[in-house]
Each structure stands twice: as C-alpha cells, then as structure tokens.
C-alpha cells in the first residue's frame, strides 16, 4: 500500500533559522512528488513537482529535492510569513494523488 510519511509533524523555527522537512514515500513507479503550502481556511497552494531522483527545484527561500525514497523541503532563512502547513504527495501510475499528513511550520520573529 502506498504510504506518504511526513516529519516532523510540527516545527518551530526562529526567523533566519534554516531547516528541512522530510517526506518519505513507498509507491513504486512514482509519477511525481508534489509539495504544497496550506494556510488556515485555504486550499493547498502548489509549490513544486519533482519527477526523478536527483531533481531539485527552488522558489524564493524554498528548495525541494528528491531521492528514490524521500523528498526534502529545505527552508533557508525563513520569515514569519513562511508559517503554514506544508504537504507532500506522491502520484502513482493511476494518477491518484496520495498525501502525507503535513508538517505545521511556525516561524517566530
């Protein structure tokens, strides 16, 4: 059974304190690994899609990387506005998207 596991469940950082969020997946025949940001009361906002091991993508203070069994979301010098829940999901050969439970990030000034 396809499982997506995110860690940690919650993370508190000081502004400027860099860290990484982890997403491990078990699906075989990965068609894509997605990262989203979700603010309270809103729908998930698309950040990145990664398709093959070794791939990296960047957007402002965020960088996503992918290996054969996990993905990392690196946050460099975070700001309070980066506080949100970060979700990852894999997509299998049938194009069903399976989500982890998310990491709740709080960045304090």
């Amino acid at each position: 059974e396809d499982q997506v596991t995110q860690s940690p469940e919650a993370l508190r950082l000081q502004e400027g304190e860099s860290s990484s969020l982890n997403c491990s997946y078990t699906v075989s025949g990965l068609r894509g690994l997605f990262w989203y940001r979700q603010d309270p009361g809103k729908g998930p906002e698309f950040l990145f899609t990664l398709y093959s091991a070794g791939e990296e993508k960047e957007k402002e203070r965020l960088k996503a990387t992918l290996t054969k069994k996990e993905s990392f979301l690196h946050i460099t010098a975070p700001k309070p506005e980066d506080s949100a829940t970060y979700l990852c999901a894999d997509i299998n050969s049938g194009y069903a998207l399976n989500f982890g439970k998310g990491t709740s990030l709080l960045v304090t000034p």
Partner: protein
Amino acid sequence: DAGITQSPRHKVTETGTPVTLRCHQTENHRYMYWYRQDPGHGLRLIHYSYGVKDTDKGEVSDGYSVSRSKTEDFLLTLESATSSQTSVYFCAIFSGGNTGELFFGEGSRLTVL
C-alpha cells in the same frame, strides 16, 4: 490562478438529506479529484476522474458517488448525508504528464447536523 471553482463554498444540512458539491474547471484538464480534509487525517482521496465518464474510487469512497458528464464539471454526491461526512471538501485538477501541475480549489465546508 488556475481556473477551478467549487460550489457551494459553505453548506449546512441535516442527516439523511442528499448533497451535491460541484467542481468546475476552465483549464480543460483531464484529471479531477475530490478530497476531504479532517483534523488528524490530512487530505484523503474520495474519488477521482481520468476523463469524461471515467472515474475511480479513492481510499474513503464509501457513502460518496461522483459523475463527470463533461470535461469541465466533476460532481460529488452524498446520497444520504451523515454527521461523519462533516468536513472540508477540496477539488483538484491535473493536466497529467511529466510537466503538469496539480491545483486545488478553495474548498467547500459541509456541516451535517
């Protein structure tokens, strides 16, 4: 912003009544999904569609049915709503392929009393 809208955005209903949520897209994307999001469970897939009249079940499909008679519309129906179906429902669209991006709507909050 991706052209995806959900309706209604908020609904309160009573146990045993039928409810239909609508997802409408203007992107002509092939794949459409319905998720529910609950505290402690994250986003769970209810049903998804890979084309007109082509649908498949997700992990929490019991008590839900879907229909897709046009590319742009994906309907989620609760035939007889129960309190356990109180949730926030999200629709998503995906173009497929190795460069596609998957976008979500703003959600529909359903309360079943």
